[in-house]
């Protein structure tokens, strides 16, 4: 009853050699990749020198016409992106003549996000708004959209610059750094000793914020003394312990910065349990939901972040302005409804100073 083993091995061998032949061979040089990297420069307008952002190809004239806008955030079903959608809907309603919808995967998965964008390209929408799950992985599909004349604008999380036209930047490092220092000084005075609890010592965003904080303080409050920076590695317990250590080692410390959504509540909790609410100020970056209990008790006076509703609102205004030809390469301002005139730096639209959540407004936000 034995079957011929040669027969079987042959098939397996053939199959595997096929696989290897199919993929190990270098691609023939003559084959062109689907999407050319450089979008053709538009015929009518001159681009500013060094302009690296993408340009849609053969985009039809959409000035004043009805726009179909599709928003593809990292994921749906969380408060943060529900808030950006809310802002977008407000802007769409104000502007009128806009067919707006948000749709995205229910998990922050780049593969699924690409699929949503791809389907919107096939649908032939006018504008795609996105918050990228991965700046590089999302680039090919966004370039495909640009190639088909679709306007592409990012917010919250950027893609490669050449894969989108404009990006609404919710908070620059400088603005966040300045806001944190101002917030701290307003509670401790300009001559205090302060400490920092960061996420990890190599975290790029946190390090940029620290750099900007120190730069701003050195210029404006030279007597503000940074005694130590401790890591919390995205662990609230570690942040708690680091803050206890700070209070023990530096008894004169008057303020602690918590620079992540985990470090901030950890630091606040340590100060609260030490019974030093009001004596040691805790200032930082986090979401309203994380900090709500501390803000309500008064142990934390304010939370620095940006307003995601405004962020979404600005993105739709940017889309309309790009479609109408008002926001184009070289523009320096964007009129954004109730937000007034927003500054445009290169291909980035700046949302402006960070938003400060306090006891009075924190209940309006759920994220």
């Amino acid at each position, binding site marked *: 009853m034995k079957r011929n083993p040669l027969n079987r091995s042959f098939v397996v061998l053939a199959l595997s050699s096929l696989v290897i032949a*199919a993929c*190990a061979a270098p691609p023939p040089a003559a084959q062109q990749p689907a999407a050319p990297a450089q979008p053709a420069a538009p015929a009518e307008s001159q681009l500013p020198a060094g302009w690296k952002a993408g340009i849609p190809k053969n985009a039809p004239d959409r000035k004043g016409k009805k726009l179909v806008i599709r928003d593809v955030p990292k994921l749906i079903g969380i408060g943060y992106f529900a808030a950006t959608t809310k802002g977008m809907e407000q802007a769409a309603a104000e502007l009128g003549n806009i067919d707006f919808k948000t749709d995205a995967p229910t998990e922050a998965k780049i593969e699924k996000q690409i699929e949503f964008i791809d389907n919107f390209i096939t649908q032939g929408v006018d504008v795609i708004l996105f918050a990228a799950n991965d700046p*590089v*992985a999302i680039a090919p599909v966004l370039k495909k959209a640009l190639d088909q004349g679709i306007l592409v604008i990012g917010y919250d999380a950027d893609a490669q610059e050449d894969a989108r036209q404009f990006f609404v930047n919710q908070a620059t490092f400088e603005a966040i750094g300045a806001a944190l220092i101002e917030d701290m000084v307003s509670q401790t005075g300009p001559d205090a000793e302060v400490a920092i609890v960061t996420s990890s010592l190599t975290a790029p965003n946190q390090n940029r914020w620290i750099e900007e904080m120190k730069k701003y303080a050195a210029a404006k409050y030279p007597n503000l003394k940074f005694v130590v920076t401790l890591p919390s590695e995205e662990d609230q317990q570690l942040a708690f312990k680091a803050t206890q250590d700070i209070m023990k080692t530096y008894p004169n410390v008057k303020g602690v910065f918590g620079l992540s959504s985990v470090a901030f509540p950890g630091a606040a909790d340590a100060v609260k349990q030490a019974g030093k609410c009001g004596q040691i100020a805790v200032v930082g970056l986090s979401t309203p939901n994380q900090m709500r209990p501390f803000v309500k008790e008064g142990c934390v006076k304010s939370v620095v972040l940006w307003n995601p509703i405004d962020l979404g609102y600005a993105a739709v205004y940017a889309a309309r302005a790009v479609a109408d030809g008002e926001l184009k390469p070289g523009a320096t301002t964007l009129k954004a409804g109730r937000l007034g005139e927003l500054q445009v730096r290169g291909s980035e639209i700046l949302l402006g100073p960070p938003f400060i959540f306090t006891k009075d407004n924190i209940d309006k936000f759920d994220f």
Partner: protein
Amino acid sequence: MTARTPTLSPARHVRVLRTQEGVLFIILLVIIVVLSLLSDRFLTANNLLNQTRLLTETALLALPMTLIIIGGGIDLSVGSTLAWSAVMLGFSWQLLGLPLPLAVLVCLLTGLLGGAVNGYLIAYVRVPPLIATLATLAIYRGFSFGISQARSARGFPEEFAFWGQGQIGPFPTQFVVLVVLIVAAHLLLSRTGFGRWVYAIGNNEVAARYSGIPVERVKFTLYALSGLMAGLAAFIFTSRVTTTRADAATGLELDVIAAVVLGGTSIFGGSGSVVGTMLGLAIITLLRNGLLLTGVKGDATFMVIGVVLIIAVLINDLVRKR
């Protein structure tokens, strides 16, 4: 070695399979007709060819998964194996400075190694497949994060995009690769002794063993093949999205298994076909694509797909009982 005598009566087997695939084909046609009435952008060569780009990775994994499930096993680690292989591709190219073709080879070998470990655990150590691959699902994902340190490799040269974004004639490159492999897998399962061994093991492992089938070697080969396919899918995936991420393809195993089961393969082993799996995958993909094109929201799409899955399984059951 005189006559081909599979353990199952072939006539009955083939008849049942044919009807199942027939039912799936009719469901697929109905879906296509309905969706093309709802959206004029659906039934275009452009859209359909584009969909093959999006489904290739899932399809590549579904091929060996069909064989594994027919053989009475399961491989939950495919998504993690894909991520690990992709990370190794990026790592060996960007950090070790290997030439890209060699890095691709590393990627394939990583997949093969992952699959071989599964195969060894299941065939020779006799760990139940569900447990073994659940463990390696976690372990390989851990490797991906550990090796990449949550950094992603990027900046691949333009010609690398050929495999995931390029075309051969009017067809996406990966679709051509996929068709070749579908044919190969179909022939392997339906025309070779190896294929019949897989059915026999899935139907009754003890009987298969007593009739002289090298059960261990067959199982080992299946899981190793599954790993190799995950390596190939990782390569194509990386070329498509131009970056390697440790969290790539999280949960992909569920999409793969859904396609296989919708395709009429019995989750208890012993019956199923490659053609059925591909029909199942086509149904899921086109449904998702078509519903999104007609403006149905993403979360509602999932529900529709779930309902269709249940209906298809019920219809299949009815057909089988008759």
